[in-house]
């Protein structure tokens, strides 16, 4: 195989501090990738991840001395070239369509003049020749001579975006860098730009480096994708693989935050903020926002390396399964008072996984074994066979004291709050109970943690409230107390068994939103057991459908809801609440 067109190795863009004595800003910090001629690569990441800085570095637009590492174009080293050497490379070999086309044109010159300018400067074309070429380019992007004669302020954003592309193509570059071509545009203009870029790259064989946070555009334009976080690559791979099965926690978070037409669940942003490039975190740059960070992540910077066929920068090899249960089986035996003793197989050979930070919905009708499964997972019941691995540690099936400290990391929110708390205990005692059992901290510390947990679920932390008994609380309040009890041990996984089924719709909505926020903020896994598909779809990343003790279908929420494979799932979907207007036989819709 021949050498790639563009080979970027250990590229760093470090800006000198604004004032002496301050640390420099490490905006791009050791990025390596390669792009073959005619191929396409997308760099994705949040605002501030260093995407645009990276793009500009490839054109030598940063102040001398701020860029180090290596950028090779067709074997020629570009880093360290002076302006005089850069000039013939720019636009002729690498062209850039900048992010904001609205302000990318000099306001005092006509479009034709600006599009033809590189041709006159680089190729020595006469004014008339350049104009003729510009007219051909403009036609290629679907615009007319009228647009050539216009001044920038006379055109719309979408028109300028296309003219920007026409201008970028004027010298027929080998590499086209397009920075956020779709941002700030309406959906139709966006679709047109995507179609145009596809056509251009296909026709001319131009290599495309796409800088974008628009994941849908990326999926349509780029064969490869590189995820950039705080100046470092987090994950690199084929676009289809990375976007359909993200492995790095950051990529996963990006996808969870990205709205597309197939998403059913509410969007959740990645918790925390992008770090400041002048003070990058130690170790893995994503660790302060990562839900699965371990000590090593804080200390050692992970290299970008192959983990099961994907290039990742993660010590843990990407998203970990928080909980992995295999072959769980539970049979109840009726006591035989009302007839011969019978075996009821409540859970039959069930395997499931909950990943870090993931919300899994477990749906099914009453009696399908959902609650039993939930109790097996939290250790309230012992399975007859099977295994449960939590955070990489196998849990003893007989719930011995050896796994007690592991068990505290899995908490259950039971179905009926009135059923699950003692009526004789106060709010404070209810929430403190797990701390007492686990003998965690001094009494004062325990009380402080009780208050924190109550505040987290939006309850008062006044002494008067702490002294109340369950019968003095509303159903919604009591359920919040129960959630607070589950949170007080700072669990890693919460198994919530119909947590809101007893509440009215408004209180349901509030509690589900609360649960989701807490889950996102604390980076917990959540297994949400419910018969209510309409509710689960708003929260769950994945849905598992259970029937007769078995999981009969499972997959991403969007997929399960849009293309249910199993007849039972389809039946559940049909039965899920939806407004279907009552009509009389006379045809009027008024009773």
């Amino acid at each position, binding site marked *: 195989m021949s050498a790639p067109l563009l080979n970027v190795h250990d590229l760093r863009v470090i800006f000198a501090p604004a004032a002496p004595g301050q640390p420099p800003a490490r905006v791009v910090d050791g990025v390596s990738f390669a792009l073959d001629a005619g191929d396409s690569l997308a760099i994705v990441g949040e605002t501030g991840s260093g995407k645009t800085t990276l793009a*500009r570095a490839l*054109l030598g*637009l940063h102040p001398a001395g701020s860029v180090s590492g290596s950028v090779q174009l067709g074997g020629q080293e570009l880093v360290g070239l002076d*302006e005089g050497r*850069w*000039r*013939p*490379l*720019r*636009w*002729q070999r690498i*062209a*850039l369509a*900048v992010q*904001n086309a609205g*302000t*990318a*044109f*000099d*306001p*005092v010159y*006509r479009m034709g003049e600006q599009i033809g*300018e*590189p041709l006159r*400067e*680089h190729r020595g074309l006469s004014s008339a020749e350049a104009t003729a070429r510009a007219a051909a380019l403009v036609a290629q992007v679907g615009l007319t001579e009228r647009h050539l004669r216009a*001044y920038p*302020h006379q055109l719309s954003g979408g028109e300028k975006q296309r003219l920007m592309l026409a*201008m970028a193509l004027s010298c027929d570059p080998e590499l086209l860098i397009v920075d956020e071509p779709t941002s700030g545009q309406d959906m139709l203009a966006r679709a047109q730009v995507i179609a145009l870029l596809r056509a251009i790259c296909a026709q001319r064989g131009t290599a495309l480096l796409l800088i974008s946070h628009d994941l849908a555009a990326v999926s349509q334009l780029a064969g490869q994708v590189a995820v950039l976080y705080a100046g470092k690559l987090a994950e690199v791979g084929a676009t289809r693989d990375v976007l359909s099965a993200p492995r790095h926690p950051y990529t996963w978070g990006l996808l969870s935050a990205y709205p597309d037409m197939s998403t059913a669940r509410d969007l959740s942003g990645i918790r925390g903020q992008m770090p400041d490039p002048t003070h990058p975190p130690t170790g893995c740059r994503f660790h302060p926002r990562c839900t699965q960070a371990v000590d090593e992540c804080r200390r050692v910077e992970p290299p970008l390396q192959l983990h099961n066929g994907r290039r990742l920068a993660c010590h843990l090899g990407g998203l970990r399964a928080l909980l992995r249960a295999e072959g769980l089986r539970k049979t109840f035996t009726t006591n035989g008072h009302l007839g011969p003793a019978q075996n009821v197989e409540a859970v039959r050979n069930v395997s499931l996984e909950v990943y870090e930070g993931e919300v899994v919905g477990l749906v099914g009708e009453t009696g399908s074994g959902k609650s039993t499964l939930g109790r097996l997972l939290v250790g309230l019941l012992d399975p007859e066979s099977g295994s449960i691995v939590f955070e990489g540690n196998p849990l003893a099936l007989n719930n011995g004291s050896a796994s007690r400290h592991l068990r505290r990391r899995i908490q259950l929110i039971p179905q009926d709050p009135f059923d699950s708390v003692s009526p004789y205990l106060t709010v404070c005692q209810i929430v403190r109970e797990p701390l007492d059992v686990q003998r965690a901290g001094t009494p004062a510390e325990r009380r402080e943690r009780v208050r924190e947990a109550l505040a987290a679920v939006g309850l008062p932390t006044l002494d008067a409230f702490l002294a109340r008994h369950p019968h003095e609380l509303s159903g919604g309040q009591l359920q919040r107390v129960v959630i607070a009890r589950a949170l007080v041990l700072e669990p890693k996984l919460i198994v919530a068994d119909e947590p809101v089924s007893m509440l009215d719709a408004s209180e349901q909505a509030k509690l589900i939103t609360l649960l989701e926020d807490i889950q996102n903020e604390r980076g917990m896994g959540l297994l949400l057991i419910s018969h209510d598909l309409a509710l689960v779809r708003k929260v769950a990343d994945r849905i598992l459908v259970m029937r007769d003790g078995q999981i009969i279908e499972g997959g991403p929420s969007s997929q399960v809801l849009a293309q249910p494979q199993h007849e039972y799932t389809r039946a559940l979907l049909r039965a899920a609440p939806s407004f279907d207007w009552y009509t009389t036989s006379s045809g009027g819709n008024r009773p």
Partner: protein
Amino acid sequence: MKRRALGFLISLWAVLTLNFLLPRLLPGDPLAALLDPSSSAYVFNSATRASLAEYYGLDRPLVQQYADYLAGTLRGDLGQSIRLNRPVGELLRAHLPWTLLLTLTALSAASLLGVLGGAEAAWRRGSATDKALVVSSVIASNAPVFFTGMILLIVFGARLDWLPLAGGRTAFARYGTPWEAARDYAAHLALPAVTLTLALVGSKFLLVRNSMIGVLGEDYMLVARAKGLSTGRLKRHHALRNALIPFVHHLAAHAGFALTGALFIETLFNYPGMGRLVFESVVARDYPVIQGVFVVVSALVLGANLLADWLSYRLDPRRREAL
């Protein structure tokens, strides 16, 4: 652009009207001194007093006076100097060209220096050149003109004896060739023009530098660089071209300042422009002359603004629709 021209005419009319009304709003009238028995200029003969009033047209109704004034002004008749007993128009025709020569020379020089220096300083923002230029321009624009003028006179006129000390040309000189004449005029113009240029250049430099720095940060400048254009083209064709738009407006607003500055400097260098005329007329309370100068200066400033509008219309396509 038509609207701007109309605005110019309306402003001019307002200036003329103000010029007509202001002296008439003052207590008394121009002949008060002649009619006041306690004044040394008291005219005893009542017939003389009446004919004086008639001569100056002060016995006619105000509207009539206003119409006469407007008609006279449009014909170029700005009245009669009381001190010199010569038509104001004639005095202005004799002195105005000198003032214009001085002002336009200094304005052009200051603009050229300000634009070139400002562009270069902005391009090398933060460098030693930039800092030196900023500091010296601040000093130059804040030093009083009589101070700089005096120093220039002492150094180049008196000590070094390179340039003449006063006047607009050598008295009674006869020039063999136009070249000789030009040299003589230029030698006399040099010191006043340098003084005025120094007074004007600072603000122009700072304005061009600032607007250029703003332009250099624009996205289109980044694109222009990415396009691989030469430094000269980036600097002049894109950056300076855009930075000049605010400069044109500044230039118009500054025309009045330049003219008044010129009047001061003319008195200092005994330059034959309107400066001495105004100075002496103020001392002698020669109102017709002062008013004439007021009208002419106002008209010039208004004209400069109209010119600036037209220029910015040419420079900035975004304004073409707005006008």
